[in-house]
């Protein structure tokens, strides 16, 4: 189980959170101006990297706020959480995880 650190509530069990996929994807301001391929890219294409991944989590059973997590998709090790307005990974803290 992952131990995820909510920037507001601290490290808590994965079951308190829900996953929101890749972080940093912004909705195009003017969708009508996009080609079909560009719109498809926004809707469906994700980096899906094997390795470091910046992703969204929501503290669904807690403060219900969204934040970012930096996690390795192979070892699942979490290296930091960050508030979305800061958009900076937060290092340190108790972000270890078990299996």
């Amino acid at each position, binding site marked *: 189980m992952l131990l995820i650190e909510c920037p507001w509530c601290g490290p808590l069990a994965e079951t308190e959170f829900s996953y929101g996929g890749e972080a940093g994807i912004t909705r195009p301001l003017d969708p009508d101006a996009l080609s079909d391929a560009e719109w*498809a890219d926004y809707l469906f294409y994700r980096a899906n990297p094997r390795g470091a*991944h910046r992703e969204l989590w929501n503290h669904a059973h807690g403060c219900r706020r969204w934040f970012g997590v930096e996690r390795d*998709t192979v070892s*699942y090790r979490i290296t930091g959480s960050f508030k979305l307005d800061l958009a900076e990974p937060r290092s340190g803290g108790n972000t270890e995880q078990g299996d």
Partner: protein
Amino acid sequence: MKKYSAYSLLRNALSHNRNWRTAWRSPEPKKSYDAIVVGGGGHGLATAYYLAKNHGMRNVAVLEKGWIGGGNTGRNTTIVRSNYLWTEAALLYEKSMQLWEGLSQDLNYNVMFSQRGVYNLGHSLQDMRDIERRVNANRLNGIDAEVVGTAELAKAIPCLNVSSDSRYPVLGASLQRRGGVARHDAVAWGFARAADALGVDIVEQCAVTDIDVRGGKAVGVQTTRGPIASDRIGVVVAGHAGVLAKMAGLRLPIESHPLQAFVSEPIRPVLDTVVMSGAVHGYISQSDKGELVIGAGIDAYNGYGQRGSFPVIEHALQAIVELFPVFSRVRMLRLWGGIVDVAPDACPILSKTPVEGLYFNCGWGTGGFKATPGSGWVFAHTMAHDEAHQLNAPFSLERFATGALVDEHGAAAVAH
């Protein structure tokens, strides 16, 4: 290839089983091939087999980074069915079903295909409406399907809790009698042996590390066993599809997730069919060894580690124990995970790409084992003719831009 038969069993028994041949060669890779299949799972091996058998292409290699069948092919819960909602999907999976029905004979290898029936449970009025709709859609496509009520369910599966006070009340189910299970390892081994007999080189311990593209055309691959040239490359690597696409400068609408399954200690025969519940994310059958084979839902996060989180297992087991109270004291024996390649519409991608001579077969996600023979059949056609077979034409990469998705998410019984 020495044919397996009752006679060969007897002959080898008399010589104390010392004279069996290896089922396939382990050749050194050649410098070049007419076609390369990357990934030695069931789909890759089936592709190579049908390239040789249906299209006369025998100078073909399957490059596998580990051992054949070590990916999702050897990690799945082996459920085979073709009762998909949408015509495009139903026809593709039904092609596969028809191949399954003659596969052991065709490959001269017992894949233990057992048509013991597949029940998809409904737990709410809406579930039952969806089931009726799907059953009707299946029948219109010539696929066997029935709606069954609780009385019939109680008779067919005595250990299933159909009482109205259960936590996940069962209101009925769909039944595909031609559905069932097959032995996953045997599917990989059978295709490998049959492809090898037709001249295909199966090269294990050979990871593809780069795809060479020149002037918009695929010209070969770099591997841990050296460069290999070919102008026809089919990539069939399931959860690693995105990694291989990147090597060719492409992107795919695929996300990789862990999917877990587990088996119990062997017990006496108690469940002679397959029971699935999309609503509560559990599916179960009993293997010939007596183990209960149970699958869970995917872990929500992206993952390339072949393991997932404990709460997902707990969730699946809670559902199974509610549905089958009699299993509550059965011990689990083994647990594992695979990496599944999930597409936005829960349907596969069997497609040409913007790189000439480079083809991708992926996106089968949580439910591609059942499609193994059919996938190989149509993908071999696509590679041999540089053009989709009519059954996989709807499953191109373009559909994500045109919007012609085949939305099986939630529409299918459950995508396994």
